[in-house]
């Protein structure tokens, strides 16, 4: 047990200063503004600046494009990126896919991709979900058909977040419709040049995409792992995304990402609640009704960043949904005013958070899928979804 503030070594203190100076220089108001307007989850200039420092794969050796950071320095960097709200979605999908590419890809290709990823020249999106295959991924219908040294990809991928920022899609495709569903699929790293990408805009303001493959040709060297063995290639990145490790209960909380959103909402509301109202001059926090709900919300925010592993993902998104709704209620009619609107309390953040929160229980694997994971992997209950 240990919960104290981390006392940084001299080297680490200097490193923290370096990170903060870097963020002051590169994570500008324009970057935030662009992210706010586009919901892109990515900023090319900022991403390349990170890459130049070796901070996309920060613990990798310098010779391989990393920065050779220690674990503690990497934690400092990650912490600062989160608390400063740096755009990170496309960086996240890129680095999730990379280990599988390194393990299963053609070595020469993998080395080239890793190098490009490290310096910020290459981004990768996750080509999993389709209009008819979401939680039940093994039902994907996008086809890859062998044609000599090449494969022909036909189908549609949906909710491919960051596809418009990416050079490759880490793509799950069906290669043998006659085999059982998990066995007839293969993973590819598909170059996206010439592929049609259309925006899908979300309730939370994030942009995601439809990606259309219409006879798109890919050389066989972009295949990852053996033909029809794609499920095992996918499993590593999928488990990492779901917060599963071998010691599922010992992993550090994944609640962090929504935990931070919860902290921002709480901070805004605490400012609101402790400021005398323009109407009657009374502070909302002195109303016992508001006071107890604020206290309950503070507990919720603490819980959001406390639950471990896949539990953290469920707890943090569901509590974010709850507190955002309750905060909206407390603000009353003004709680309906979005960011940029005159008179919007809390800069409109609560109105935004109430919308944004809904998506957090869906993307990256729904909370329902995560409940199945907890039931089976942690509680040891029997599998609930039919084995087809």
């Amino acid at each position, binding site marked *: 047990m240990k919960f104290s503030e981390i006392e940084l070594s001299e080297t680490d203190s200097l490193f923290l200063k370096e990170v903060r100076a870097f963020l002051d220089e590169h994570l500008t108001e324009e970057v*935030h503004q662009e992210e706010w307007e586009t919901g892109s989850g990515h900023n090319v200039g900022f991403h390349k600046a990170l890459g130049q420092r070796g901070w996309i794969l920060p613990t990798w050796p310098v010779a391989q494009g990393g920065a050779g950071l220690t674990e503690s320095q990497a934690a400092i960097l990650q912490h600062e990126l989160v608390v400063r709200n740096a755009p990170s979605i496309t960086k996240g999908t890129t680095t999730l896919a990379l280990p599988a590419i390194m393990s299963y890809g053609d070595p020469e290709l993998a080395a080239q991709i890793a190098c490009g990823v490290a310096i910020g020249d290459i981004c990768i999106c996750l080509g999993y979900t389709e209009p008819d295959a979401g939680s039940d991924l093994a039902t994907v219908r996008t086809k890859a058909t062998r044609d000599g040294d090449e494969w022909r990809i036909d189908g549609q991928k949906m909710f491919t977040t960051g596809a418009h920022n990416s050079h490759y899609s880490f793509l799950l495709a069906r290669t043998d419709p006659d085999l059982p569903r998990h066995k007839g699929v293969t993973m590819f790293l598909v170059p996206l040049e010439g592929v049609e990408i259309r925006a899908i805009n979300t309730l939370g303001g994030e942009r995601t995409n439809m990606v259309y493959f219409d006879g798109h040709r890919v050389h066989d060297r972009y295949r990852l792992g053996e033909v029809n063995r794609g499920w095992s290639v996918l499993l590593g990145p999928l488990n990492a995304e779901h917060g599963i490790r071998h010691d599922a209960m010992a992993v550090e909380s994944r609640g962090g990402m929504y935990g931070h959103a919860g902290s921002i909402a709480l901070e805004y509301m605490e400012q609101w609640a402790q400021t005398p109202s323009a109407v009657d001059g009374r502070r909302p926090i002195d109303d016992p009704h508001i006071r107890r709900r604020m206290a309950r919300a503070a507990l919720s925010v603490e819980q959001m960043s406390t639950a471990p592993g896949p539990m953290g993902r469920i707890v943090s998104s569901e509590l974010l949904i709850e507190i955002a709704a309750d905060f909206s209620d407390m603000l009353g009619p003004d709680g309906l005013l979005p960011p940029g609107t005159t008179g919007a309390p809390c800069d409109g953040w609560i109105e935004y958070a109430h919308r944004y929160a809904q998506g957090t229980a869906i993307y990256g694997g729904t909370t329902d899928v995560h409940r199945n994971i907890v039931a089976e992997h942690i509680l040891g209950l029997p599998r609930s979804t039919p084995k087809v």
Partner: protein
Amino acid sequence: MMLPNLEVPLRHADFSLEEHHLMLQEAFRSFFKDRCPIERVREAESGFDPTLWAELQDLRPIAMAVPERSGGDGAGLAELVVVAEEFGRRVAPVPLVEAAVTARLLARFADRLPTDLLRTVLDGSTIATLALHPGLPGVMQLIPSAAVADVVVGLVDDQLVMVTNHTKPATVTNQANAPLGRFNLSQHDGSTTVLALGDDARSAFDSAQREWKLIMAAAQIGIAQTSIDIAVAYARERRAFGTLIGAFQAIAHPLVDAAMATETSRRLCYKAAWWADHGHHDQRKHIPFAYLSAHDAAVLATKVGIHTLGGVGFTVESDLELFFRCSKGWTLVAGDPNRVLDEIAAELYGPAA
């Protein structure tokens, strides 16, 4: 839009138990497993088993978290939290929470105590309990373990007092079958020792109340965990509609919710105990956080547990019935658990206007 720049310090988030915690956990887990089968809980008359209490003293749970200079073993609240979870896992019919917390309180005023009193509290031969609310003149208070305790400590008229419990009050029938008794700190036939006055008295009492909530929170985690364990074991064996019922999401997902609430609360208990042991006044919010969270977890886990077992869970033969009774039955003596929201608010937003 520029988001507020939150100054978030980089903190350790190490919830792991250290070697000595694990040894304690193992020692108390095997003690309660061997000596406190569920039949013994049922058989304990008025919720107290004096033989079990005497046997438990070999492990020195009351002396454990008392400073060495007062004759204790110098451990802290973190260790007590680990032990209390094991106690809660078996709903053992012994006044562990009250006695351990009151011992820590008495140890602060060792020089005011009659000779040998503290020593006998620490070895369990004198049972000390805490009146959880300040005493009001002429008002009898329902006090945990007052039906079996030898001394009652509490706050009355701005004095922290220890009163000998000469004529032990009869057990008041209650949901938890706990040895609750009615007692009045200012009207009794015992002898009174004044331990502290004014601010000192209030602040010592406040600490003891907070510690009781923390240790009770850990006991509630134990209650919740066993309820989940019983229900999961049942759901892995019971069949309906041609399959194991644990394969139904309508059964599994509520159990997941209970497990999440329990694991989250367990971590909040560790964190609260660690901060309390390290004397950080600005981190006081963690005890009411842990208490409310653990209370909610135990209420949820016992409810889901009973429901998972269906009619069987609702019978008086079901083990879950005992855990259900203690989830509310052990906490409600401290008052409405939701009132701790006021404590949280006071820590975060200052006193109420």
